[in-house]
C-alpha cells in the first residue's frame, strides 16, 4: 500500500463528502466553486438524459448534472437536503452536480486513499478513482474528469 512509500509531509487534500443514494462520495474541494440549495431547474430539450437542465446562478446559466442518473441509479428524489454542488472546471466552465445531501468536509492524505479498486466490477467504478476512509465509513473519491468529461469532448 502507498502508506509505506510516503509517510511524512504527504499532500493532504480536502474533500467534500456528499451522499448519493446510500453511498458517500468525496469531491476534491479545489474544484468546488459553491454549494447551492435546490432551485428550479429548467429543462434543456435534447440534452443528455443525465442533465436535468440548467439553473440561474447569479445571472449565469449553469448546466446541472444528476450524479444519480449518470451512475445509472434511480432518478433524484428532491428533499430539503438536496444540494447542487457547483464545480468550476478549466475546460467545461461551471457545472452543477445534483447530490442528495452534503455531509462534511474531510482531509485525506494519499496514504489514506485506496487506489487499488479501479478495475472493480462495480458499475460506477469508472467515475471514482479511489476509496478513502473517514472514521469507520468509506468515501468513494470522484474522478471529476471522468464524470464530467465524457460529454464535453
Amino acid at each position: 500500500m502507498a502508506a509505506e512509500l510516503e509517510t511524512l509531509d504527504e499532500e493532504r487534500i480536502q474533500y467534500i463528502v456528499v451522499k448519493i443514494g446510500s453511498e458517500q462520495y468525496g469531491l476534491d474541494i479545489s474544484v468546488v466553486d459553491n454549494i447551492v440549495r435546490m432551485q428550479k431547474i429548467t429543462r434543456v430539450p435534447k440534452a443528455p438524459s443525465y442533465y436535468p437542465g440548467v439553473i440561474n446562478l447569479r445571472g449565469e446559466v449553469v448546466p446541472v448534472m444528476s450524479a444519480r442518473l449518470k451512475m445509472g441509479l434511480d432518478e433524484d428524489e428532491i428533499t430539503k437536503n438536496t444540494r447542487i454542488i457547483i464545480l468550476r472546471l478549466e475546460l467545461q466552465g461551471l457545472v452543477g452536480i445534483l447530490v442528495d445531501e452534503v455531509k462534511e468536509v474531510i482531509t485525506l492524505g494519499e496514504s489514506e486513499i485506496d487506489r487499488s479498486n479501479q478495475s472493480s466490477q462495480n458499475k460506477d467504478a469508472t467515475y471514482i478513482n479511489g476509496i478513502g476512509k473517514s472514521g469507520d465509513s468509506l468515501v468513494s473519491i470522484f474522478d471529476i474528469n471522468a464524470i464530467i468529461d465524457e460529454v464535453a469532448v
Partner: protein
Amino acid sequence: MDVSQYLDIFIDETNEHIQALSDNIMALEQEPENKDTINEIFRAAHSLKGMAGTMGFKRMQHLTHDMENVFSEVRNDTVKVDSNLIDILFKCLDAVEGYLENVKATSDEGTEDNAALIKMLNDVLEGNGGDSPAADSSDAGGSEAEAQESDSAEGSDDPNGKNHFLALKLDEESIGKLRGAVEDEGLKLYGMTVHIQKECLLKAARAFLVFKALEDYGEILVYDPSSQDIEDEKFDLGFSVIFASNSDDTEAIKTSVLAVSEIESVDLALVSVEQYEKAAEEAKAEPEHKVEPVAAPAAAAPASPAPAPAAKSAAPAAAKKTANKPVTTRTVRVDLEKLDALMNQVSELIIAKNSLVSISSADNGSGNLDTQSWQSQIEYLERITTNLHESVMKVRMVPIENTVNKFPRMIRDLSRKLGKPMNLVMTGEETELDRTVVDQLGDPLQHLLRNSADHGIESPEERKAAGKPEEGTIFLNAFQEGNNVIIQVGDDGGGINTEKVKEKAVERGIVSPEEAENLTQKEIIDFLFMPSFSMAKTVTDISGRGVGLDVVKSNIEALGGNVEVKSTLGQGSTFTVRLPLTLAIIQALMVEIRDEKYAIALGSIQNIEDISIDEIKYVEAKEVIHLRGNVIPIVRLDQLLDFEPQDEEPSNLTVVVVKKGDLQAGLVVDNLIGQQEIVIKSLGKVIDNNKIISGATILGDGEVAMIIDVNALM
C-alpha cells in the same frame, strides 16, 4: 534613437498605406490616365517610405523609394502603365508586406534585400529615362529665400548658396542656446549648409537623414529654414543648421552627412557665437527669423546625442500622415458620432433615473404612488435602455470593408495566374458586423472566392462556346436582413456539376450507387462541405486540396452562422453566408409551450397566425398550411422539444411563421407571452451539442428560458 514606441503606429499606418496602394494600383490598371489615382499612389508611397526611413528600416525604405521613383515617372507621364508594371508593383507591395510581417514578428525588417525587385523597378525607370524635375516645392523655397535677403557680407543670401550658414540671422533665444552649448558644456559649434541634388524627390527625407546622422555627433541647435518647414519640404535645394558637438573631426562629420544618398555637397565650418551676435545686431531691423525651439534646454541636454528633438520630429510626421487619411476602423477607433449618441443616451438615462427618484420621493409617506407617471417613466426607461443597447452594439460594429477590400487584388492575381479573365464585383462593403465576426470572416470568404475563381469560372474558350462573355464575373454582395447579415459569394461560371459530385461520392465510398440515385441536389452539394472532398482534378496551389469548403463551413458555424449553396449548371453558383448581427442581446418573442417558456428571435419571425386545425393539409405526409399563396410546413414545437402530447388537441393553433432566406416554417406554440429584449447566455460547454437550442436567457423573475434556433429548424 528609440522608435519602439512608434512601432504600433508604424504597423497600423503601413498597413493602411499598403491597402491604399493596393486599391489605387488596381484602379490605375483600369484607368491608367487618372491623375488623382496616381497622385494618391504617390502620396501613399511617399508616406510609406518616409515612415520606413524614420523607423530605420533601410531595406524597406530602399524598396519603397524605388517604387516611389517609378510612381513619380508615371506621374510625369514618362512611364506608361501596363499590366507588366502593375505586376511588378504588386510584387513590390507583397515584398513591403513581407517586411511589415517581419517587423510585426521581430520588430526588425529582416534581411531580405529584394534586389531582384529593385532591379526590375530600376529597369522600368531606365527604359524611360530618369529625368525627374524638381518637386513642386521650389516656389516655396524661392520665396523664402527672398524673404531672407540681408546685407551680410559673408556667405551667400541664397539658402542654396555656398556657406549659407554664415549668413544666418539668429534671434536672441538661439544665440543664447549657442552660447549655452559653448560656455556651459564646452562644445564646439559647427555651421553646416547641405545641398541636395536637383533630382531628389524627397528632400525632407534626405534632410531628416542628415539630421539623424548629425545626432551621432551632437545636438542641432539652429535650423534654417525651421525644422517644421524642412519637414514639410518647404525649402529649395539647400538648408543650413548650426549644431554643437564635442568632436573635432570635421571630415568624419562631413563624410557621414555625404553618406546620405542624393546629397550633392556639404559646407561645414566651425562657427562662433560672436559672429552671429554681430550679425544679429546689424540686422536688428530685419524680421525675426524662425527658429525651432528645442525641447530640452541645452543645459539639460548634455553631450550625448539628443533623442528628444529627433523623437519630436518623428511624432508630428506620423501624426500628420494620420490626419489626411480617411478614418478607417481599427481596434480603438470609434466614430465620434457613435460615441456622441452613446453619451446622449447615458444622459437621458440619468434624467430617467432622476424622474423615477422624484416620483418616489414625491409620494413619500402618502403611500399612493402616481401609477400613471410611474408607468410612463418605466416605459421611457425601457426605450432608453433599448437605444443604449443599440448604440453600444454599434460601437462594436465595423464595416466588412476592412476585410473584403483585399479581395479585388486577390482575384486579379488569380485571374493572371489561372489565365482566366475575371472581374470581382463587390457591393455592400459598408455593411456592418460585430468586430469579432468581421475579424474572422476573412479566411472563409477568401476560400469561397478562390473556389469561385478556380472551380467556378470556366476557361475563356469554354465560356465563349457557352455564349458567355469571356471575362468571368465573381460577385460578393453583403447586406443586412433582419438580425442577420447575408454575404453572398458567387460566380457566373459553370455551376456545380452534381452528377460529377455524385460520382465522386460513390467513388469515395461515401454513398452506395443506389443511395446516390435518390439524393436531392442539396444533399449532393452538401458533400462538397465534407472534409477532404475535393472536386479539383489536379491539386493547384489555389484550391483543390480538399481543405476548403469544410473549413469554411466550420468557421462560419463557429461564428454562429451558416452557409448555403445554390447552383445552376452552366449558369454559376452562389454561396450564401448568413451571420448573426450581434452576439449578445436580441429582441425576442417569448412563447409558452405547456409550462415552459421559450424565446424566438424577433428578427426571424415573419408573422403570427391563428390557424384552425382544419386548415392543416398534408403534403408527403407532412403537415403544411396554405397561407397567402405560400405552402408553409408546420413544425410542432411540442413534439420537437420532447413534450408529452396534449390529451386534447385545441381546435385553433397559434403558429409563429419564421423565415430563413426564402424558406419558411410555421412553429406551433401554445401561448404567446410577448416581446422582450433578452441577453443570450451560453448553455455551457457540457450540453452545447444541442442544435435546436441556441442558448438560454434569464428572465426578469430569474427563471431560465431556452432560445430556439430557428435556423436549425429549417
